[in-house]
């Protein structure tokens, strides 16, 4: 390998000329600041791209924002309506008489309802005419199977006390 190095000695000296090729004076003074500037610009573009992507997924949002840009009155009207809705929501939430009953409490009341209006409950569907879909299913007796099979909800129990 040393022989090869010697063979190429004059070539290596010629290649040393490349080391004397230097960029214009002061070139490296601004190099790093240019790199950082591009990195910052890229970060800004990245957030702009995110917004663009959002608008692509929800074009109505872009149209709405454009409409707000064009008509500031519309924007203020929209903001006012939102505030009103918020206020109404707060007022209604604070009125106890308008608050919905808890679901469990409503479920407990079903037995009371059955006692109050047994006629309605005992009526078969074909006799009561059109039954609204909002009528609760209050019958606690399991319906008999039309095919003579045992109802899965009412299993026969044979209980014999232990110790016999």
């Amino acid at each position: 390998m040393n022989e090869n190095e010697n063979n190429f000695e004059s070539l290596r000296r010629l290649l040393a000329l490349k080391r004397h090729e230097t960029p214009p004076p002061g070139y490296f003074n601004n190099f790093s600041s240019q790199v950082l500037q591009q990195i910052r610009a890229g970060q800004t573009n990245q957030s702009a791209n995110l917004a663009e992507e959002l608008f692509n997924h929800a074009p109505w949002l872009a149209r709405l924002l454009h409409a707000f840009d064009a008509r500031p009155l519309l924007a203020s009207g929209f903001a006012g309506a939102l505030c009103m809705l918020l206020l109404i929501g707060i007022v209604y939430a604070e009125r106890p008489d308008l608050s919905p009953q808890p679901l469990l409490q409503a479920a407990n009341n079903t037995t009371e309802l059955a006692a109050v209006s047994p006629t309605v409950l005992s009526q078969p569907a074909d006799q009561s005419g059109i039954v609204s879909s909002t009528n609760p299913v209050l019958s606690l007796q399991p319906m008999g199977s039309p095919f003579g099979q045992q109802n899965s909800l009412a299993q026969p129990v044979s209980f014999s006390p232990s110790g016999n």
Partner: protein
Amino acid sequence: MDEELLVRRARRGDLEAYDELVRRHQERIYATIYHMTSNHEDANDLAQESFIKAFHALKSFKGGSSFYTWLYRIAVNKTINFLKQRKNRMHMSLNDLDFNAEHDPDLMALISDNTPRRAAGLTELQEKLNAALLKLSEPHRLVVVLHDVQGQSHEEIAKIMDCNIGTVRSRLFYARQQLQASLSDYLK
């Protein structure tokens, strides 16, 4: 400041730390790309892009090699990809030779006695040398640039090029042979 610490800070998005890293390596990265492309504008763009890419890829830098080697790999891969795309559209835009070139005795000895003006001789030599380098394939050119121009060791070059030392040596030998043939008129 310790380079490892700067890298850790830069990974967390600290641009001040990254600024310091750029300042430390900008000249060598630029020089490598410039000697590969023989074009100042291309070298400027590629060097900047390499540093930007490195910043965004810092999270993937595991520290298995030095930051310098890792950065070099990014710059070298970027440059080779660029040169492959630019194939057959080579355009030299050479930097001026610095003042010291005219006072380098080795270089002076190489210039023909028939050259009327020394500066003209050097400029001609510079152009011939760059043209000869551009005739080499990218891997061969890279080995010559890293070893004979920038003075890096075979081991360092092997790490940068992700190959073994034997490959580096054989590429260097072949590239020198090619250059010697191209520049035979100037190497008497």
